């Protein structure tokens, strides 16, 4: 029996570091936890997570799981939770867990909370904190029932450092022939970017609508990000206008980030965007409007025309 099943995410080669944030949540919940790795040819990935204090690393390794098709993954995860008697299934919030874990909750007849930011055990009962209303409110939530599914907001929990005795690895028993077969993987457009991942970058440079077009966005935002070795982010408006891919969207409806340095260029500061950056250590805003809401939360503000300021900033950083 384990108390918590932590589902890890990987790209076929490595575990995504941010997905280990969920291990920190599992530890706060108390009790034993297992790590779950699903995929095809993932023995080495499973081996790489043996030093995170789990009672066991559970591996479902099968060609049918080569791509994370939600119907198949959810079936295997729910069955594993049942077999192992896990009362909580948890993963770090990402499009991978957002796709799969609610389906797991339905299969387990369990309630679910997304984007848990903190947990406090009061009289043996966990109280969870999560954002509401585009992050303007923080709700304290209680759950009923014996089983629950959670996603952890990655920026709120630190991935643990590896230490301790290696966990045993055990295969997950499942019948591949009985998996759902209504979903076919067709293709994935691999990002050709050599820039760091948004959730893992030390520096993030984001652009908003005033960047005008894709070329200007790439030249100024991409240029500054490259000069700083950072990742590129974008506001919803910039994504909407086709200046940047959706995978770059920072905010409550995109990716929540917490880098050491966040530079917002031409970002006015819509609440749903601010909710996605507020745990950054240092925020810099560059905007021509001195009254833009972003200045209310930026550590440093530079008022002026971004088309003049950003090229100078790139030049000065590179100098």
């Amino acid at each position: 029996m384990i108390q918590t099943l932590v589902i890890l995410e990987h790209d076929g080669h490595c575990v995504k570091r941010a997905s280990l944030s969920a291990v920190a949540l599992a530890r706060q919940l108390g009790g034993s936890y297992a790590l779950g790795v699903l995929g095809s040819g993932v023995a080495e990935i499973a081996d790489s997570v043996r030093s995170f204090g789990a009672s066991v690393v559970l591996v479902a390794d099968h060609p049918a799981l080569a791509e994370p098709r939600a119907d198949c993954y959810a079936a295997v995860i729910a069955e594993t939770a049942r077999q192992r008697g896990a009362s909580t299934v948890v993963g770090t919030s990402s499009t991978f867990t957002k796709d799969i874990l609610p389906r797991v909750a339905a299969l387990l007849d369990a309630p679910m909370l997304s984007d848990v930011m903190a947990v406090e055990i009061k009289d043996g009962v966990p109280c969870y904190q999560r954002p509401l209303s585009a992050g303007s409110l923080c709700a304290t939530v209680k759950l009923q029932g014996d089983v629950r599914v959670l996603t952890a907001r990655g920026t709120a929990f630190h991935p643990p450092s590896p230490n301790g005795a290696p966990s045993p690895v055990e295969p997950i028993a499942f019948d591949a022939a009985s998996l759902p077969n209504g979903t076919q993987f067709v293709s994935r457009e691999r990002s050709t970017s050599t820039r760091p991942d948004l959730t893992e970058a030390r520096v993030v440079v984001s652009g908003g609508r005033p960047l005008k077009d894709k070329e200007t966005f790439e030249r100024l935002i991409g240029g500054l990000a490259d000069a700083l070795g950072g990742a590129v982010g974008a506001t919803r408006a910039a994504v909407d206008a086709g200046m940047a891919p959706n995978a770059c969207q920072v905010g409550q409806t995109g990716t929540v980030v917490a880098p050491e340095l966040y530079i917002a260029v031409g970002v006015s500061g819509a609440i749903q965007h601010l909710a996605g950056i507020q745990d950054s250590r240092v925020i810099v805003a560059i905007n021509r409007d001195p009254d833009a809401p972003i200045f209310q939360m930026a550590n440093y503000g530079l008022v002026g025309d971004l088309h003049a300021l950003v090229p100078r900033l790139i030049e000065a950083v590179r100098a």
Partner: protein
Amino acid sequence: MKILVPFKRVPDPGSSSPYGMSEARPWIINPFDEIAIEEALRIRERGEAREVVGVTIAPSAAEEQIRAALAMGLDRALRVDDRRELDPYAVARILLAVVRQEKPDLVLMGKQAVDDDANQVGQMLAGLLNWPQATFVSKIEFLNGGQRAQCTRETDRGLEVIAVNLPAVVTTDLRLNEPRYVSLPGLMKARRRPIELLTCQQLAVEVQPRTTVAATSPAPRRSAGLKVESVEDLLVRLRQHEKVL
């Protein structure tokens, strides 16, 4: 093909209303659901669907948003009368009962509602139905005479294309389309259209929310910092004071 579009009314996140959390604040159709309605209408308009039915679970005060959805072009609109604070799983269970009654070939809905940002209902509904799902979709094409939907998904790892057998649940992302503008005459016309009323009792579904919000508090806010005069000044601060560069 018949398409069911569940939609939710949410407080307008763009308005700074003086009404706080009261009913008097401005409400809108959840923007992601509006994109789902628009997509369903376009599928019908290009001859690939014959009927688009909208459903919302809400008190009667949601009439304005239901009328707006009808004015966009829904063939029928249903309202399941419920004034409780439901959680996503309770909503999914009610929608399961609606799906069993309406028998759509496709459920199309927003990936998340912008009030609680749970991003759960579509996936839960697909799980309860044991249907395939395609989430965060920015493009839909139908294959094999409408037996399958090929969907482009917006993921953290970039665009992913999957094909799902119908019936299926598809949730919409931002870039799928730009919802149409509803004209005032269109809204006036929608005033005379019927809204079909349902209850959980009629649907023979009993739900009890298992998620309880015990308290809410304003999220911690950062305070305004320093306005610097120049690029050089900024770099000095970032390098010497903050040591982030």
